[in-house]
């Protein structure tokens, strides 16, 4: 079974990489804006910054957080809470210190 499973994984990795690199040439809507839901259940579209450190923070936020779960509305938590939560996620998801700081800064600016 081992060789078959390895072949499946390798195939999936190759397909995923090719798909991403191909789609990477297109405009990525997910980086221009994100739709989230607030506490009242209302959907809200957040325009992500397209330049500066907050642009890097938004990118780190979407790329790292969305790999495991839906993106949460920055308005859900206060500045202080995001500071603690992203610290927790830094440990859990092996974020670098720079990614940690960028994401905190972005969430605190967007809430």
């Amino acid at each position: 079974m081992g060789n078959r499973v390895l072949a499946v994984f390798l195939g999936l990795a190759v397909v995923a990489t090719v798909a991403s690199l191909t789609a990477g040439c297109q405009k990525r809507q997910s980086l221009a804006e994100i739709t989230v839901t607030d506490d009242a259940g209302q959907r809200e579209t957040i325009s992500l910054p397209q330049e500066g450190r907050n642009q890097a923070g938004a990118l780190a936020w979407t790329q790292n957080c969305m790999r495991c779960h839906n993106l949460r509305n920055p308005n859900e938590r206060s500045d202080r809470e995001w500071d603690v939560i992203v610290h927790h996620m830094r440990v859990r998801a092996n974020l670098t210190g720079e990614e940690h700081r960028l994401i905190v800064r972005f969430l605190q600016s967007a809430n």
Partner: protein
Amino acid sequence: MTNIYYSRAVTLAVLAAIAFAPLAVAQQESSGDEPLTRREFSKFLEEYRQFQADYGKLRQENEQLRAEVAELKDGVDSGSREDWKADFEAFAAQERESILDEVREELRDITDPLLPGKTNFVLGGAGVVTFQDRQNVDSTFGVGIAPTLLWKPTDRLLLEVEIAFGLTGDDTFVELDYAQVSYLLNDYMTITGGKFLTPFNTFWERWHPSWINKSATIPLMYERGLVGPTGLGVQVRGGFPIGETKLNYAAYYVNGPDFENTSFGTAGNLGFENFRDNNNDKSFGGRVGFLPIPELELGYSFLTGRVGDSGSRFSGVDTFIHGIDLSYAREFEAIKGRLDLRAEAIWVDTDRAIFTGPFDPFTFDNKRSGWFVQTAYRPTLSDFRLGDSIELKNTEFVLRYEQLRESGPGTRGADHSRLTFGINYWIRPNIVWKAGYSHDNVSGDKDENGFFMQFAFGL
């Protein structure tokens, strides 16, 4: 000072004008028909002398002021300019410090609540209510709630505790899911101690919370305990970029699993609730994850150690477990939605042992393995709506295929495969309704095909 000088000069001119005015008036009057009396002349003379004295005095003051101005001017022109500058700078610095103190005070009111400290904590967690109706098993509801407390006393220190409350069989259970202390050593390394989620593959550590797990069931290989959810010990972990790619790692040293040898049904299995280790040899494990592109992560994990009870005839039994994992998530314009792909595999190789059976001793090649591939699609870019409240973009379709191969006496050696299809509806990013169907195929044993529904939320 120049202003004072001019002011004095004007004053002198005015006084002089006033002083000579009576004489002019007297001359005018004397040129008139009325002769000036002696008394009037004496009065005018007295006033004239008074004015003359005042004039002399003012003139003297004026000269004195001129001298002072000249002296000051000389002082400014010469070395005293530095003293003036120093005095001015000292005064300006004092004023600036005073203003900064006020600003600092105002900023402190704003920033103090943001600093780590005794009040810097967050309450989070997850909850789940499940209903399942499987073939050959009575249908049942289940519930579990797990509050999580995060506390950040300093910028580098984080304490995390999660306690699970739930029901199992006829009993209520309260369990410490994890309790760990983490310290950030630098940007690329964190040290952690306590009871932590095992960084073996990624399911237990990242995806097991019900609001993150896209299916209402957990993969077979984890349900059957090929690798446990937690370890008790220490670990170092972190991540760092390598050009455009990224590498992350975790290495841990824990109590490790223990070896089941008392029951015919579970003989040879590993138990992962080994809070008081059953031997002096700790287990060592690790995981390396590589992200060639941000959306894709590939990982390799291992865990090895002695599992037999010390002092028993199983004391020399070791195990080696290793696994691979893959995760990929990305939104594609072409398919109007997000694709999420997750796959994991585990191989367990434990030393052969001889067990005491109900009739005769027995042994077997103690190897177990399992794998799953799960894909989920959510049309996040679709605008289709059904009525006012149901949106297609909140619906997610999940498909998982998995296999498990175990060795052991009786039916435990059977191959087990399962295909699960599910539909999720996301009420909010952290609240989901799940419904699904599992089709089982167990060679030589009863299948457990079944429906399930689940409501899950995460805080």
